[in-house]
């Protein structure tokens, strides 16, 4: 092995890579832009939609209630509702979004309030339609406050305290540190993204440096130089690995910033901002776990692409590989899939699972060592195969 030759090959491949618009887009532009664009697009779209839905006073229709004037008056008095006159086609009006909701007051509702039995007011709405759901919520809260008023009046009439019906209150309080909160909400997602993007980042350079060279006729040129095939494959491998790492680093950085921004923008039900900051230590740990996987991807993709004679042929070989990576990466994101000693030996799935734990600040060192070591073994085997393939004439000169 000659380090100078490896360095010369790597430098040349890097220079060519930086000049290739196609690979630069997949390695740098996509990971840098995809998250900010997706997340800011999602936030601005949802905030505009939700804002609009919340601002508009919902039109609701009352069905029945002629013999229950009190509840009808209470609803009409609510400034957050606009009660429209009754029409027979109220169901159609809800479905066609002309009104947001309707409420059906049963006959004799007011009388039953005094004497029982308890009656049910049905709220009709359009499931899945955000404005209709908001309208139904408004109607429900309006009815609840009317019910509370009725209870208070009854308690006051009997000289009983208001605490009789609510002897205690409840309050939710988060005690987990911010990075754990952020990790729990996006932890499984971050490992998945690192895995997928470290593969897609490696894919185009792996094709370009193997099948691409064959197609362009430069493979024979380089094989006629004194560089050994070992040094050549290592120089090429280092470039593919660099591309894979660059994509993963850029995507996580971009994702981290985007999520932090999203956390500040989104307000939880309790009125607090959702903290989506990830701990720096966790992010570094995820990278370290991703390193051997990135080596594995780079070597495996290069080996497969080397069999192809053209860029297109290599693409058709590698596209099914995407599924082989996506399926175990997604499996780890599924709720309820937990790390077991057997799963710790399955490449990709193991890294995805351990990343999910690490990002929430949970470090099971035995699993971490087992997964890191096993992925290193797979990576070394893949690299060894890549080196062997580069020495096979039947692969290099396949016709």
């Amino acid at each position, binding site marked *: 092995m000659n380090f100078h030759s490896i360095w010369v090959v790597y430098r040349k491949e890097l220079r060519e890579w930086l000049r290739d618009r196609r690979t630069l887009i997949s390695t740098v532009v996509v990971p840098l832009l995809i998250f900010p664009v997706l997340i800011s697009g999602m936030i601005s779209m949802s905030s505009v939609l939700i804002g609009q839905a919340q601002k508009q006073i919902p039109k609701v229709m009352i069905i029945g209630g002629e013999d229950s004037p009190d509840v009808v008056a209470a609803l009409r008095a609510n400034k957050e509702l606009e009660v429209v006159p009754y029409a027979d086609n109220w169901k159609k009006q809800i479905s066609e979004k002309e009104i947001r909701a309707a409420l059906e007051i049963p006959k004799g509702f007011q009388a039953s309030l005094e004497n029982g039995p308890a009656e049910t007011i049905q709220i009709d709405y359009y499931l899945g339609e955000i404005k209709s759901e908001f309208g139904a919520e408004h109607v429900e809260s309006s009815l609840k406050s009317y019910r509370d008023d009725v209870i208070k009046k009854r308690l006051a009439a009997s000289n009983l305290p208001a605490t009789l019906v609510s002897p205690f209150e409840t309050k939710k309080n988060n005690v987990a540190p911010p990075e754990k909160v952020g990790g729990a909400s996006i932890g499984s997602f971050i490992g998945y993204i690192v895995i997928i993007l470290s593969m897609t980042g490696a894919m185009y350079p792996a094709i370009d440096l193997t099948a691409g060279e064959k197609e362009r*006729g430069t493979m024979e040129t380089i094989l006629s130089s004194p560089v050994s095939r070992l040094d050549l494959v290592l120089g090429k491998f280092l470039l593919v690995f660099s591309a894979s790492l660059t994509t993963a680093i850029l995507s996580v950085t971009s994702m981290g910033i985007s999520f932090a921004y999203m956390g500040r923008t989104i307000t939880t039900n309790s009125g607090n901002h959702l903290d989506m900051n990830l701990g720096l230590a966790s992010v570094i740990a995820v990278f370290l776990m991703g390193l051997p996987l990135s080596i594995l991807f780079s070597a495996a993709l290069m080996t497969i692409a080397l069999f192809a004679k053209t860029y297109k042929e290599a693409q058709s070989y590698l596209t099914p590989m995407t599924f082989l990576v996506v399926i175990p990466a997604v499996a780890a994101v599924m709720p309820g899939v937990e790390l077991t000693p057997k799963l710790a030996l399955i490449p990709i799935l193991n890294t995805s699972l351990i990343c999910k734990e690490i990002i929430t600040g949970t470090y099971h060192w035995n699993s971490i060592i087992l997964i890191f070591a096993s992925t290193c073994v797979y990576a070394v085997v893949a690299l060894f195969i890549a080196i062997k393939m580069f020495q096979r004439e039947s692969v290099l000169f396949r016709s």
Partner: protein
Amino acid sequence: MIEARALSKSFQDKKRGIIRAVENVTFTCRPGQIYGLLGANGAGKTTTLRMLATILEPTSGTAVLCGYDVVEHPEKVRANVGFLSTATALYPRLTAQEMVEYFGRLNGLDEPTLKKRIDEIFTRLDMNNFRDRRCDKLSTGMKQKTSIARTLVHNPPVMIFDEPTTGLDVMTARTIIGFIADCRDQGKTIIFSTHIMSEVDRLCDHVGIIHGGQLREEGTVPELRAKYAEHNLEEIIVKVVGPHLANSEV
């Protein structure tokens, strides 16, 4: 000096079984000489030249170039060889100068020597006006000059040319032929394959006619003309190959 000693190469083909592309090819080419390897497509010329350039490993036999065995010291052989064929393309995203620099560095030249050598070659081949232009933006002639500069950068004593003028226009082909003649004048050992008999007439001191992977005839051009009582080289090849055609077709 090139000495091919019973050089053989077989390939395994799924449909056709074992294919003997080159069988027991033996010849010698001395410094200051041009050895022309002639034969039809598929005769075994490219495989022979690729084995000499150590791009392919012989199945049996060997060759010695500048004292180095192609099987035992392939890297040392390559350091002494300049290999040029129509299949040896340029890296499209490198400039002409970067392309030549890359091969100079792979050949172990230090930076001051490399710079001096590039300046020398670029001036000699009149390449200074496009040295910073990317290879994918070069004309065919410019590309061919860059390829020549690439093979020359480490000043190898042996040059191997595999059909170097195939598909080139007249002017570019002339540049290549002139360059091969220059190499001979500098005392380099040269082997080249071609289909163009005017090039053989103009350049070759010795020729070898290869067919079905075997060297069927060898000698100087005047010797072959005298032996076959034929001036036209194409006719000589037909006469040499003719008796073997029936066998090779089977």
